[in-house]
Structures are given as C-alpha cells and as structure tokens.
C-alpha cells in the first residue's frame, strides 16, 4: 500500500521506520540531557545551602562531614541543622512539581494546579483546624493535612463529575472550594490567640523554618511510594491527554486511570503541604518551565518534579540569606516568582484569545 503517489520519490517503509527511530532516540537524548542539567541544579542548590549561613563552611569541610568525618561543630551544623532542611526543600519541591504536572496534563489546563483548585487549601484548613482546636502537632498534624488534601480533592472531583470530568469545570469548582476553605481558615484565625494566629500565618505562607529530620522522614517515605506509583500511572497519560473519546478508543480505562493519577497527585500535594505548609506557586509554575525546556515532549513529569526541587531549594536559600537578619518563608519567595507568571499567563490568554 503506497498511499498517495507523488512525483517525488517516496521513502520505503524501512527507511521511514529508521527515520522515526532516529527521531525518537534524538528526543530521548534531549530529555535525558535536560533531566541531567536539572539534577545538577538541584545538587548545586543543596551544596550551596549546606555551605552558607551564619557559619560559612567551605565545600571541603561540608564534603568531609557528609562522608562521616569533620569535627563535631561542623557535623552539628551540617547534619542536624542544614541537611534536613535542604533535603526537605528539595523533596517538597519534587512532590509539588510532580503533582502540578500531573494535574495540568490531565486536566489540559495550565491553571489546574493543586494550590489553585483547593487541594492545598484543604490540607491547610485541616491542619489549622487540628492545631488550633485540638492542639494536634507533629506527625499527627502531617497526617491531618494529608487527609484534608484528599478530602478536598475528593470533594472537588465529586462536585465536578458529570458523566465524566471536564477540566474547565473542575478548575472552576476547585477555585470555589479553595476559596471557601480559605475563608474557614481565616475565621478560625480570628477566633484564636494572637500568637497562635501568628504561627498559623507563617505556616500558611509555606515555610521550612525549624524543619528537621522528624518532618523529613514521613515525607520521604510518602514520596518513595507515591512518585513511582504516579510515574506508573502516567503510562496512561498519552492516551488520556487526547480527550476521553479518543482515549477510550485507544483502550484506556479512562475513569479508572484518571482517578489513579488524580489520587496520586492529590496525595503528593497533601504530604508536601503537611511537611512545609502550602508553598504557593511551585506546583503551578514548575510544569510550564519544564515544558519550555523540553518543547514537544508532552507532559514531562520528571523534569517538572526536578524543576520544583530546584525552585524550592533555591527559594529557601534566597529566603534564608538574601536579606540580612531576616528569614523569609519559602512560600513568599516562590510567590514573588509565581505571581508575575500567573499575571503574564492571564494577560497572554486575553490577548491571544485562547482559553486558559
């Protein structure tokens, strides 16, 4: 079967297959290269975090301490103070980046990110409620935040479900639910003591202050389970991205595959919020950055996760050391980066006339 005959010479099937194979390998190399560069950025952020601070440590000392040597002082600063916080920043960024990438790919909407559609608000509301009314703290608080995220996600999903999920409707309903939950949080804070409200405010901005190994290990455990699960579930994404009809025609179990992915993405946002509070804009901004680095690669989940890591790592670094004698919460720095991007996105959508 030769299709349309033209005057130009048609390549044979074998030649065409070889050409496509070359194209595919070229794209895979590009993907690998970008992931490598992002990983280097992440490791650089980690290393710089370990070296900088009130006690500046040279790279050599840090390296020795990590390998088990170094004096007690360095070991305390690096291993007890800086390392858990830096690793936590990277992990939080990874989880948020991955979560945002899944939401945006699945719902085909750049506005669809867990901090916009109510998932992070759900985690925040649950955490504030638990800590203020019931005095919950520590790992139980993290668990409460996770439950809040899943409950909010489930609520938005059920409200948006009508013979299937429409991305636009889910985003709108999510924004509504998120706003409602934020007002609950505001109300709770008006009913609390000033000091409680103040620490709640800091938490709500998304902060890594005072975070150490007790916050790190639960998040690590959760990400180690959720990230591979998400990447496995993303196997269905190439089909799901083509719309429900086409996806079903390609043999995807549309409702089930989508639910698995949304569940994983919601859980990732939930555990990350539990660890560091609702760090704004990371989930929102990382996927478009990753897509810009790798145009034509579709969802680009892993690059988005690594971008998130780099972003939060660098943001926390900036928040700690940019201004003298002041520690800015990491959520503030990511907001400074993310808010202009949101405005640009909205302005561009209006001008070009495309939706979202």
């Amino acid at each position, binding site marked *: *079967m*030769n*299709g*349309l005959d*033209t005057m130009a010479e*048609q*390549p044979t*099937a074998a030649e*065409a*297959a070889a*050409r*496509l*194979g070359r*194209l*595919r390998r070229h794209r895979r190399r590009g993907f690998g290269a970008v992931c490598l560069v992002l990983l280097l950025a992440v490791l650089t952020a980690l290393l710089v975090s370990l070296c900088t601070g009130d006690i500046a440590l040279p790279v050599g000392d840090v390296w020795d301490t990590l390998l088990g040597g170094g004096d007690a002082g360095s070991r305390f600063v690096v291993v007890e103070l800086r390392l858990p916080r830096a690793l936590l920043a990277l992990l939080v960024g990874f989880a948020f980046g991955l979560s945002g990438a899944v939401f945006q*790919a699945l719902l*085909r909407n750049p506005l669809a990110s867990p901090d916009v559609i109510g998932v992070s608000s759900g985690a925040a509301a649950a955490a504030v409620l638990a800590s203020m009314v019931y005095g919950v703290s520590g790992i139980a608080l993290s668990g409460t935040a996770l439950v809040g995220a899943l409950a909010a996600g489930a609520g938005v999903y059920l409200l948006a479900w009508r013979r299937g999920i429409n991305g636009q409707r889910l985003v709108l309903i999510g924004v509504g639910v998120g706003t409602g939950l934020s007002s609950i949080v505001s109300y709770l804070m008006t009913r609390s003591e000033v000091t409680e409200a103040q620490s709640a405010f800091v938490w709500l901005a998304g902060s890594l202050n005072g975070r150490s190994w007790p916050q790190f290990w639960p998040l690590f455990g959760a990400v180690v389970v959720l990230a591979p699960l998400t990447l496995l579930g993303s*196997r269905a994404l*190439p*089909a799901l*991205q*083509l*719309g*429900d*009809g*086409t996806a*079903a*025609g*390609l*043999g*995807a*179990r549309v409702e089930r595959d989508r639910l698995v992915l949304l569940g994983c993405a919601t859980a990732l946002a939930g555990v990350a919020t539990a660890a560091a509070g609702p760090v704004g804009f990371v989930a929102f901004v990382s996927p478009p950055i990753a*897509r810009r680095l790798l*145009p*034509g*690669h*579709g*969802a680009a989940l892993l690059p988005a996760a690594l971008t998130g890591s780099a972003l939060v790592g660098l943001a926390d670094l900036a928040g700690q050391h940019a201004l003298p004698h002041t520690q800015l919460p990491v959520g503030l720095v990511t907001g400074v980066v993310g808010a202009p991007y949101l405005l640009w996105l909205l302005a561009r959508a209006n001008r070009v006339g495309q939706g979202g």
Partner: protein
Amino acid sequence: MTSSHTLQARQLSLGYGEREIVSRLDLALPPGRITVVVGPNACGKSTLLRALARLLPPLAGSVLLDGCDIHRTPTKEVAATLGVLPQSPVAPDAIVVADLVGRGRYPHQGWFRRWTRADDEAVAAAMLATDVLDLADRSVDELSGGQRQRVWIAMALAQETDVLLLDEPTTYLDISHQLDVLDLLTDLNRARGVTLALVLHDLNLACRYADHLIAMKAGRIVAEGPPGDIVTASLVHEVFGLRSAVIPDPASGTPMVVPLGRHHVTPPA
C-alpha cells in the same frame, strides 16, 4: 483479504439522561466494506457511531463485536480490533506529529510500554499512507486543518485495527482534502480489507464512496443498502425534507443528488 470482524447493534436504544435519541435499532456493518451513515442534523448518526465505538453505554440493547457484547469485553481487547476517530479530537499543546501518531500504538504496548520495531514500522506505514512523514518533527499546532486531520487519521491507522469508525472526518476540510481523505480510506479498505464506518455530511460524496449507505432520520434507519439501490428523490425527501433530482454521477456512475431549492431552478419542460 477481508476483515473477518463483525460489528453489530441489536435492539439498541441510546440517549442522554432522559432523552432517548435512538430506539431499538438493529444494524450490522458489512465486514470488509465501507459503510457511510448520512442523515439530517440531530438524527442520531453521531450518537450511533459513538455507541458502536463503545464511547456511549446503551440504554437498552447491545453492541456486539464478533458476537460478544462490547461493554463486557476488556477495553484493551476492543481497542486492538476497533479504532475510532471522534469528531473534533483534541491534541495537547506543543506535541510533535510523530509523538501523536505514536500514541495510536497504545493498545498494543505492554504494561511497561516497551517500544518495539513493530511499533516503529506501524507508525511509519501509517505516516507514509497519509503522507505526513515529512511533518514528523513538526508541532501539531502549526499544521493546517487538512494536515492535522491527516495526522489524526495516521494515528488511527497506526492502531492497526480491522475495524475503523470515523465521525465526520471530512467536515472541516476543503474539497480537495475531503477527496484525499476519502481516497485514502478507500485505499485502506481495498488493500487491507479494513471495515470502515463513516459519518458524512456530503450526500454526494457518501453516495460515491460508500459500499453500503445507511440513511437515518430521528433515530431510525430509514433505508440501507448500496447507494445505487436506495438513493432516490423520494428517499432524499423523506430523510432530509429536500426536493431533489437524482441523476447518475457523470464521473462515477453512482447516484448524484441535485438539490432543488426555490431559486435558480429551471422548471422541467
């Protein structure tokens, strides 16, 4: 070589919510042939195609693929035999043509998605057939409507199914691209015996390209059969409410419907 897979509807009732659009319809797609469904707007032809493609669960009755209820068959198994190209398919932003066509291989790939030589060859064959190989590394967004539709058809072809359902594949194309697509589908049918079912708006192209024509109105099949046998002025009037004269197409000999409106019509002598 003819496709041996059969797709039938038995006492099929379809609707959305309370509204019933198709009632107790019986249909059997002739295997290895090109079937075209025509009818006025809102007659249920797209709804019927969606039901045959397993995209719409029936209110009553069943759709049978090779004698088995299509809704009780695992979806991957169905997708290996039955391909569907819905109306106005959506592509994600910034995706290249080779990637989109490659997604047609989804039903053939295992759990861990190993890409094999067979996949490469199927995609290459599909892209050669639709003449989009030169566009392989271009972004789908940049293509013209006709090129984009050919890429979607390439994706459906890469799925390598024996039965292919297409919902209005030519609606947004200009006339030369409409003919390109229909000729391509005919090549596919003649060379590989693929069973095709299309919904078309253009009655004359439907008459020319269909082996089996189904005319629907208000959820019922009014007539079905080879176009030469069933297309008459009275059928056109019954289905479309249109006064017409039906003459043999000078190019193909199939029935050609000449519409008679209120203006620009010479009264018969």
